[in-house]
């Protein structure tokens, strides 16, 4: 059973390596959005430091939303998803594998890139650590919750815009505590509580989301 899990993870990573642009587009989107805000607001370091947590988190959220559309799309069109539904391996397990691969491709680059962008916003070193830590805990939740929306909008008219309307309201708690943690760190309160709550969101999401994704995929392919 676990061989199937790792096979799906490896396959998705391999497919992404063959088509690098798709992964890189979402990552560069994050960089571009983060660069636009100082241009729009002005280079005043104090202001930038204040808006940095919110801007970087919203940027990461939108970037991972863009990546979500890819999660099931290709597999849906070439029939792989149907075979996964029919396969004797439990569908939630395969969904968990796809979600893990998706997070490795869309979430991890954001985690690694965020400190560099945070420097542009004049964040202090501890705040940069907090930013990376919250993204490390928060982006999996985005992939997990967003995956349900991605499966539901498969092959639907206006899928991309619809996906954002469905999924963005559900991302609110992650945004509040993710950006809140960095803000608390910047203002010297410490991010301990926020980080614990993010962790508390990640665990149930990781447990339930593969099942919900499996149900959504079954609805989509039947």
């Amino acid at each position, binding site marked *: 059973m676990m061989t199937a899990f790792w096979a799906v993870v490896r396959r998705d990573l391999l497919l992404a390596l063959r088509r690098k642009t798709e992964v890189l587009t979402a990552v560069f989107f994050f960089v571009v959005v983060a660069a636009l805000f100082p241009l729009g607001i002005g280079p005043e370091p104090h202001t930038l430091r204040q808006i940095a947590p919110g801007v970087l988190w919203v940027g990461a959220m939108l970037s991972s939303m863009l990546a979500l559309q890819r999660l099931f799309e290709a597999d849906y069109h070439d029939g792989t998803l149907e075979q996964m539904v029919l396969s004797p391996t439990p569908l939630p397990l395969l969904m968990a594998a796809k979600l893990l691969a998706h997070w490795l491709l869309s979430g991890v680059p954001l985690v690694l890139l965020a400190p560099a962008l945070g420097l542009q916003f004049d964040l202090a070193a501890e705040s940069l650590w907090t930013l990376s830590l919250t993204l490390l805990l928060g982006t999996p939740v985005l992939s997990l919750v967003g995956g349900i929306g991605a499966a*539901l909008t498969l092959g639907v008219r206006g899928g991309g815009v*619809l996906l954002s*309307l*469905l999924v963005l*309201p559900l991302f*609110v708690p992650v945004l*509040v505590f993710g950006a809140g943690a960095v803000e608390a760190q910047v203002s010297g309160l410490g991010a301990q509580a926020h980080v614990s709550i993010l962790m508390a969101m990640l665990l149930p999401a990781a447990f339930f989301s593969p099942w919900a994704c499996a149900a959504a995929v079954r609805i989509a392919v*039947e």
Partner: protein
Amino acid sequence: MTASLSWFHYAAPQTFYGLAGRLWPWVAALATLLGAVGLWIGFAVAPTDFQQGEGYRIIFVHVPASWMSMIIYLAMAFWSVLLLVFNTRLSGMMTRALAPTGAIFAFLSLWTGALWGKPMWGAWWVWDARLTSELILFFLYLGYIALTSAIDDTRRADRAGALIAIVGAINVPIIYFSVKWWNTLHQGASVSLTRAPSMAQIMLWGMLLMALAFWLYAIALVLYRVRTLILQREAHTAWVQALPEVAA
């Protein structure tokens, strides 16, 4: 055996169509009556508030609308669970019929809240926990409606909508507690189950009457909308063709 039979008797669209047709005029009439009495109490009988003046009277619309927007989302989640568990067609139609009414109530709650906030706080909008979570609830309704209307196959649309409604219902409390982080200007709850209400008896009566009227209004509207949905989806069946209102 017999109990379960009668329980599912009205789950068939054909039988429910007749039941809804018999019920909705009565419910609508009762809603009008209670609404009229409630508005009369609210605007004529209830005394002027010593802190907020006449402006507080919007509470008689605002609070029931907010209650209904939340209750209808729960009702949608309830019917969604029934749909996914028992696979009854009527559950899907009920969920679809509830969504527009819930969205309207959420919008009405935000709108009347803005009208109330301007004279009381001096701002149309503040980023307070309850306002923000009501706004997000409104977005959830819009997402549900957008998703179900984007899918042409009704069976898939119903089931996809049911899943997102359940996911949303699980998220609503999480969203509420997370946006509670910035607890600002919103006054504390006026009515709660754990302590004595902090308002005059007559105001409470007005509000409860209005809440009841909103309940009945929502039920009447949903029954009517379900009838339309049933006609739309069962148009090809013999029993719909045989209905006097269709045959004519």
